[in-house]
């Protein structure tokens, strides 16, 4: 009884603090100026169609490309890191350290501008293609560690059972170990996907044409053209509109998969 009362009081205090914070923000914010700067309906109406048909579409598309490429690269790096061949392990470790250590922005810049100058190499798809390649390289490095942990999280008996049935090592990895590893890595890979959605906003450094603008670049240009900050608020809403349903979807998927174990 005593403890329940105490808990009630503590909860009551927490609610009060929250309510106070809301009031303070609401009162102290300059709503008029916020409205003129961020909530101009005509600006929004002007920007919205292309922001969705071009910018949001590109953000999703770029994220999927970077994620898919990063996933393939990540599996490859994870397998290299688990290889019994020492040089493969070294190579994987060096790669992962390099691309996790550098800011993604620098990598994008390097792929888009340094690579063509230094090696006369031009990535297909122009500077956006080069930027996407950079995102793939970075995503692969991040995913490799999660995937390696996932592979190692599959009980050894699984591979042994497959090998004892005569299945070759590669087939065992593809049919038995990796499918189970992926269940383990769904949470960290979801995290990586959400990070990638936001990292596509760094692609502006590679430069873009109207067709290749993603949400952030589009919004920044929108701010300049309309001389108003409304597009920034729209961009924020769009990102949340993409990320929140996605994380919910993955949570459902995870529960489904969990049930069949």
């Amino acid at each position, binding site marked *: 009884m005593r403890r329940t009362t105490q808990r009630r009081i503590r909860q009551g205090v927490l609610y009060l603090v929250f309510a106070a914070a809301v009031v303070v923000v609401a009162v102290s914010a300059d709503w008029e100026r916020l409205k003129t700067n961020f909530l101009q309906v005509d600006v929004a109406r002007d920007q919205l169609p292309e922001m969705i048909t071009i910018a949001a579409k590109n953000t999703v598309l770029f994220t999927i490309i970077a994620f898919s490429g990063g996933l393939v690269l990540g599996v490859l790096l994870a397998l290299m890191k688990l290889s019994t061949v020492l040089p493969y392990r070294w190579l994987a470790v060096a790669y992962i350290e390099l691309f996790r250590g550098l800011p993604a922005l620098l990598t994008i810049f390097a792929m888009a501008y340094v690579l063509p100058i230094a090696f006369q190499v031009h990535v297909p798809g122009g500077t956006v293609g080069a930027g996407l390649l950079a995102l793939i390289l970075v995503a692969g490095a991040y995913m490799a560690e999660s995937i390696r942990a996932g592979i190692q999280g599959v009980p050894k008996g699984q591979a042994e059972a497959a090998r*004892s*049935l005569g299945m070759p090592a590669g087939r065992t990895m593809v049919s038995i170990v990796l499918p*189970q590893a992926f269940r383990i890595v769904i949470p960290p890979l979801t995290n990586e996907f959400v990070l990638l959605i936001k990292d596509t906003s760094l692609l502006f450094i590679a430069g873009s044409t109207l067709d290749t603008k993603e949400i952030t670049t589009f919004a920044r240009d929108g701010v300049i053209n309309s001389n108003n900050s409304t597009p920034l608020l729209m961009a924020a809403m769009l990102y949340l509109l993409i990320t929140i349903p996605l994380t919910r979807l993955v949570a459902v998927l995870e529960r489904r998969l969990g049930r069949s*174990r």
Partner: protein
Amino acid sequence: MTAAPAPVAGIPAIEVVALHKSFGELEVLKGVDLTVDPGQVVCVIGPSGSGKSTLLRCVNRLEEPTSGGIRVEGIDILDPEIDLDRIRARIGMVFQQFNLFPHLSVLRNLTIAQRRVLGRSRAEAAEVARHNLERVGLMDKVDAYPAHLSGGQQQRVAIARALSMDPDMMLFDEPTSALDPELVGDVLDVMRDLARSGMTMMVVTHEMGFAREVGDELIFMDGGAIVESGRPREVLSDPQHARTQAFLSKVL
């Protein structure tokens, strides 16, 4: 179904000669010799850590022997030139922890290696799978996932999975040790039927009743070596060695 090649008379199913195995500094097998003839059931008992699992796992090279020789149906399986996967496909193995593939249905557990290793068609593999599920009394679980089966059912599925490869011999590593006592009987029944059908079997077990009733030979291991072996009835009722006596007095 392709019939297993008839065992050639006079050639042992398994022949282990002077087998040594070390894990780093730790010598786990210190010169093991044994022969399993076609159709024979050899049971292996011994205290924990005596090297029973290691011995069994050397027979299909899940463990790499340090020295010595292993022949399976006359073939030197330590020869680097041999196709180890083909040999393994002829040696069924059943594990203490079942090791069913949790992401695959029972049917797929039984068909995946048939299709990938033996190259059987989907229909043929499924037919073999159903036949073997019937054999272990689990025909109704064909579409279930392993997580929805009891331990005893999982182990019987694991036996059916191994049998679906039409192996010439079966290795069992404490197949009932992870089971609740009331589930042990069903698994032992399946193994008894299998032995009766003429399957060559090497069984690491603590089930002395099974060893006495089904085994043709009983091997007692201790400290990485075979201490004593013979007819199960005789070894169990009249052990010659002091260490065998001490072990049996503890488990019987």
